């Protein structure tokens, strides 16, 4: 959140002091429920809010945690504190397994797959009676204690302090996460998977990491819940807990730190308050929920771009440019050959233009080079290394970054955060360094911020750092795309129609910018329709038509080639 550390610490202390304001034990009980729900919602928020995947099986991990500690405690007399750790490990391991399977799939299928997993566990909890005692559940769990017989939490107030401490620790961990390169990778994946891959983020591994952390945390929540309520039944795995958690996250504000705490408060308080409505309680509740989804889609703590304070800039990157080459590159779509035996070579430090009429296969060729599409045949080498089958993220890590024909940004982040996110490839520290707030982390964050400021200044966006990317003008968005690509520190930059939709002055500025990019030692390949830009900036031009390279050479020579004029202007050679 955008509050100073003092305020956050104050709020945390106030939260801990809350039960001492009243001696009413029922209120204490509600407070414990509030914090337990907040903890669970925080874990779900990592998946829904940061990774942007709808997980309907989350209650299952909560249940795994609860059953793990319940079985260990009642069968083997394992102390609660060890049960807690075991619960985290068990839930996290299942999370790894399920995530490994399900995260390959996106959208509704993912949601339903997780739902299916939850239902399997529900069935097991009901029918594997030897282990779980079936629908009756496991009762008489021992109260939570830090060591056997020591500091037993007998009062609700004690439990509240324990759970609230966990919630606060979790809030700090989420805060550290959002400030680290790991957290930026999470958000990049949520905002724009394709762009995330193009700046070198391994989308699948990032999701898996988030999923495992979230499930382990849900396991901890389940264990705490089990020792507080002291009964574990299959209902914990059921639909109603899943729905409750989703409601809390969505109403509170997904992707925020206080959102789950706020949402859990509203959930518990509202259900209590609505008791006055008697039988209308649940109906009123569902109406309020639906209305909040429709009218407040971002939730109560809904996030805006959280821009950090600017810091002085400096530093530049110089790299020896490599050479990319293709031989006999072919890509078929069904019967259509979009790219047909293309051989091309780009030398270090060159600016090469790729032109041709619409539908000539330029973008397909681009996608092949960038690893976004696998070739049907042929080879691509980058810096002498065969990378025909590399993914986009792998190519990005080698030093090839691209922009997209249709503007592709992280729309809900500030301009500065867009660029900071793109420095992922160079990041050495991650979440754990951020948690410890280590010196290396602080140094690196400073360097990253400097690099981002520098890149923004370079791209003429220095004054616009704190605006949401979504609210930039069209021309500025295209500049920001280039800034993102540059912040990934490429050796080869692929620009897909950078001048499309730009007015003449903007196009002129773009020409200067591309030259300056090359002067930084970066090789540039661009697809462009704006001939003035191509002529002004390119050292060499390659012309494609129907997937075949039909001409190649100095720009002014190429556009006088009668064959090029024919494919470009219509059926007859021009006579101007």
């Amino acid at each position, binding site marked *: 959140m955008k509050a100073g550390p003092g305020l956050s610490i104050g709020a945390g202390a106030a939260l801990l002091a809350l039960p001492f304001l009243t001696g009413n034990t029922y209120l204490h009980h509600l407070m414990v429920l509030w914090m337990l729900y907040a903890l669970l919602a925080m874990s779900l928020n990592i998946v829904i809010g940061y990774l942007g995947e709808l997980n309907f099986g989350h209650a299952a991990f909560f249940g795994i945690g609860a059953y793990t500690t319940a079985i260990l405690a009642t069968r083997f007399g394992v102390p609660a504190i060890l049960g807690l750790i075991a619960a985290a490990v068990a839930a996290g391991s299942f999370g790894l397994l399920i995530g490994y399977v399900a995260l390959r799939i996106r959208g509704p299928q993912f949601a339903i797959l997780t739902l299916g997993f939850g239902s399997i566990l529900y069935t097991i909890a009901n029918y594997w009676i030897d282990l779980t005692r079936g629908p009756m559940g496991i009762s008489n769990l021992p109260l939570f204690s830090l060591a056997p017989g020591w500091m037993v939490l007998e009062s609700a107030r004690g439990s509240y302090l324990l759970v609230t401490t966990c919630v606060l620790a979790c809030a700090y961990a989420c805060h550290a996460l959002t400030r680290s390169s790991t957290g930026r990778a999470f958000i990049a994946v949520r905002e724009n998977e394709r762009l995330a891959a193009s700046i070198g983020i391994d989308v699948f591994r990032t999701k898996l990491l988030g999923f495992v952390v979230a499930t382990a945390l849900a396991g901890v929540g389940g264990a705490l819940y089990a020792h507080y309520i002291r009964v574990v039944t299959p209902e914990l795995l059921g639909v109603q807990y899943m729905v409750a958690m989703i409601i809390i996250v969505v109403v509170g504000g997904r992707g925020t730190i206080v959102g789950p705490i706020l949402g859990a408060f509203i959930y518990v308080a509202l259900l209590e308050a609505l008791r006055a409505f008697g039988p209308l309680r649940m109906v009123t509740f569902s109406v309020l929920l639906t209305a909040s989804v429709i009218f407040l889609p971002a939730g109560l703590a809904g996030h805006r771009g959280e821009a950090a304070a600017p810091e002085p800039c400096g530093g530049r990157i110089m790299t020896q440019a490599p050479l990319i080459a293709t031989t006999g590159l072919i890509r078929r779509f069904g019967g*259509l050959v979009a790219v047909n035996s293309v051989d091309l070579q780009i030398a270090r430090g060159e600016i090469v233009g790729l032109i041709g*009429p*619409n*539908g000539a296969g330029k973008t397909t060729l681009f996608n092949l080079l960038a690893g976004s599409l696998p070739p049907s045949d042929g080879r691509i080498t980058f810096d002498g290394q065969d990378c025909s089958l590399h993914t986009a993220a792998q190519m990005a890590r080698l030093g090839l970054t691209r922009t997209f024909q249709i503007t592709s940004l992280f729309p809900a982040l500030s301009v500065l955060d867009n660029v900071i996110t793109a420095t992922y490839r160079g990041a050495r520290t991650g979440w754990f360094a951020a948690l410890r707030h280590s010196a290396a982390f602080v140094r690196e964050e400073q360097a990253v911020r400097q690099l981002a400021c520098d890149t923004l200044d370079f791209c003429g966006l220095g004054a616009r750092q704190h605006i949401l990317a979504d*609210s930039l003008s*069209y021309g500025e968005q295209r500049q920001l795309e280039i800034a993102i690509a540059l912040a990934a520190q490429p050796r080869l930059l692929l620009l897909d*129609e950078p001048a*499309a*939709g*730009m*007015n003449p002055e903007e196009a002129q500025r773009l020409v200067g910018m591309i030259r300056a990019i090359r002067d930084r030692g970066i090789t540039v390949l661009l697809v462009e*329709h*704006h*001939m*003035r830009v*191509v*002529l*002004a900036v390119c050292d060499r031009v390659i012309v494609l038509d*129907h997937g075949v390279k039909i001409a190649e050479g100095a720009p*002014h020579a190429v*556009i*006088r080639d009668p064959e090029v*004029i*024919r*494919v*470009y*202007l*219509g*059926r*007859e050679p*021009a006579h*101007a």
Partner: protein
Amino acid sequence: MLEVINLEAGYGRHTVLRDICIEVREGEIVTLVGSNGAGKSTLLKTISGLLRPTAGAIRWDGERIDRLSTHGIIARGLVHVPEGRQLFAGMTVLEHLELGALRATRGGKSRAQRLDLVLHLFPALAERIGQKAGSLSGGEQQMVAVGRGLMANPRCLMLDEPSLGLAPIMVDALADMVTALHAEGLTILIVEQRIDLALRLAQRGYVMETGRIVMQDSAAALLKDPRVREAYLGA
């Protein structure tokens, strides 16, 4: 016949079109040229009711149509054949033509006559009438898209990049088709990237750049105007 007056439109908060004024008179072929991203397709989408203008007006035979639904506009005889054809990949050629006739204007030719006309214009479709659109070649798909539009019995046809992705020989056929449709009495507004082709077919033309109309003149004059060529080839 079709008048666009001071039109402003875009996607969400992004205004793409600014202060657009164009006119298409009965029986004309008018072309709209300009580089990628100039806003040509956005203009056609706004005319056909897919996008709502934020300012200005669109008149058809004097009637305001800028608040009508797309199917209401089609029923008045103004039909948009979109870029990229937008066919239904799993449906047959005949089904496309049947659906095209859903909102046919009354009067003029009967449905059967129109079907005959389309199959006469595009004999290749007659052979593939039962085939699914997804299995056709690019040129044949373009014929289906135009045929589907013609089945609505339009008085004005708006063609968006009809030559896109066609082999050169098909582009010639396309030019012949436009001439033939015009001879049938249709008014045509054509958006085309191959400017020589477009300006040779049309009587008048508009040049668009970054969401504005920057030039308008007779097609012959635009064809000679070095500035038009420059906008494309820079030479």
